[in-house]
């Protein structure tokens, strides 16, 4: 029936372990991207939520909002919505991984001679591509409602880099949550109660200075606030002034926070994946 098996096996053992992990991860990235093409309705939901936020907050509430330090509310809002979109991506990652884990397909992956890391690295890379697509849609949407970047393409790219770094960190959080969730249907009940306060108690919509003392401190230190403040600065959009250490060092925190999250959640997710089916 097949004559492929023996020769191929030898070739495999000749390739390095690391090369195999990269190749397998890349195949897995292709798999997740094909999911986006074959079932685009999922990613459309993840677009429409932030677009709704732009419309509701930008036009309904925004007309009555004052941005401390001056400037238009939509100019202020858009960077926050970019970051929020990265945050809600946790839901897509967690659902994707939980769906895989709940079905037999992970058993097949685990019983094949493929790199064990491939499922997770493949997902992380695919999430980066999804994030790029989401940001592109939102940038276009932002330009249409009067948002713009004012500090050149270099700073724009730096802001993009910070958004992708945050998304990478959140991919690992999402993978961990997806593996902890008992099944794909319960993912939403775990992710959204977590993501919503994170996006609300931040500088996305209003200044932490306007919140009660302790809540303002939480909001200022929130990783979401760090990236939001940093990209506002990089885009040259109106930002928030504040004298807390966190607000003063948002650029540093926008790099450190994601790295901390990766350091914590990547090993947790890998550990959890290894323990699947035990």
């Amino acid at each position: 029936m097949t004559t492929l098996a023996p020769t191929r096996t030898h070739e495999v053992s000749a390739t390095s372990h690391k090369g195999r992990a990269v190749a397998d991860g890349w195949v897995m990235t292709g798999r997740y991207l094909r999911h986006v093409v074959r079932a685009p309705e999922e990613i459309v939901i993840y677009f429409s939520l932030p677009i709704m936020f732009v419309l509701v907050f930008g036009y309904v509430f925004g007309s009555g909002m004052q941005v401390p330090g001056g400037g238009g509310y939509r100019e202020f809002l858009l960077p926050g919505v970019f970051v929020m979109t990265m945050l809600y991506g946790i839901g897509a990652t967690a659902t994707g991984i939980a769906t895989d884990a709940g079905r037999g397909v992970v058993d097949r992956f685990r019983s094949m001679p493929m790199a064990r890391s491939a499922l997770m690295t493949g997902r992380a890379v695919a999430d980066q591509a999804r994030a790029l697509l989401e940001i592109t849609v939102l940038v276009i949407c932002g330009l249409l409602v009067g948002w713009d970047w004012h500090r050149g393409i270099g700073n724009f790219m730096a802001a993009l880099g910070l958004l992708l770094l945050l998304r990478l960190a959140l991919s690992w959080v999402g993978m961990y949550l997806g593996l902890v969730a008992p099944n794909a249907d319960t993912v939403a009940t775990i992710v959204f109660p977590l993501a919503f306060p994170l996006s609300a108690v931040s500088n996305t919509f209003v200044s932490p200075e306007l919140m009660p003392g302790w809540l303002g401190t939480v909001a200022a230190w929130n990783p979401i606030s760090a990236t939001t403040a940093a990209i506002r600065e990089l885009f040259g959009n109106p930002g928030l002034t504040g004298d807390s250490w966190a607000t003063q060092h948002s650029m540093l925190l926008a790099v450190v926070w994601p790295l901390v999250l990766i350091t914590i959640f990547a090993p947790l997710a890998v550990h959890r994946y290894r323990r699947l089916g035990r």
Partner: protein
Amino acid sequence: MTYAVVAEGLLKRYKGGVTALDDFDLHAPAGGVYGLLGPNGAGKTTAVRVLATLLRFDAGRAEVAGADVRTQPGLVRDRIAMTGQYAAVDEILSGRQNLVLFGRLQHLSARDAKRRADELLEQFGLVDAKGRSAKDYSGGMRRRLDLAASMIRRPRVLFLDEPTTGLDPRSRNQVWDAVRALVSDGTTVLLTTQYLDEADQLAARIAVVDAGTVVAEGTPEQLKATIGADRLEIVVEDAGRLGDAASVVARLTGAAPGVDTELRRLRVPVTDRVGSLIATVRALQDAGITVADAGLHRPTLDEVFLQLTGATR
């Protein structure tokens, strides 16, 4: 004799304290189909998952296709394929994309993976459905796709965990044909099933599993022989003559027959099969008792199964 699968004293305890495998021993010879037969919850699936490196075990030793399951799991995975109880395919991808994906993950080149996918789609009658998402496949098609995925690279050992549960007879036959084709190519198949008919059809040897351990092992014929001799069954026309018939049968065979008054049936073990049948029918006719039906019955695997696994229930 070389063995494709060896398990010695396997012990597996789940976290909740359930002992799924308890001193589980298995020696499946290379080549052919080896059946693991047992009721639900007997430990068949646990055994397969342990042997396929998906599940760790607490004690004992296991070897699959010449590689040690505990110390060389990578080598085991290189030589096996597994089709579990639930179709292990990607629901969103098309049938062809699934096969290409699994081919790529088994390190076929893109071209080889595509060529192999097309061959398998052909072999499993899925060509017309190759572009459709697996989630839109019928249960039988999904199972066939799953099985095709297990055959991308000819595995040395293929684990099939209840591959035909819930399939219609036509799909079941297709699965059986595919299994036979694979076996003729030299693959050893370890098949778990709760269908005795399936084990009887496919398996050269069978291990009967109950409560996490192998309670009997042998060829289907050997297993049937363990339950005893063939039986003679006589159904009489007139229920009123059942007592008379029983004494005739008892005199001829030297054993008191089991009597089922509702079915008007007598059942008795015999050694001289056809001789007893003819003599008994003739004697009953001589006694003026009308025989409605008469026949010889070899014990079925069902009876073996029920007798072996019934004791613990």
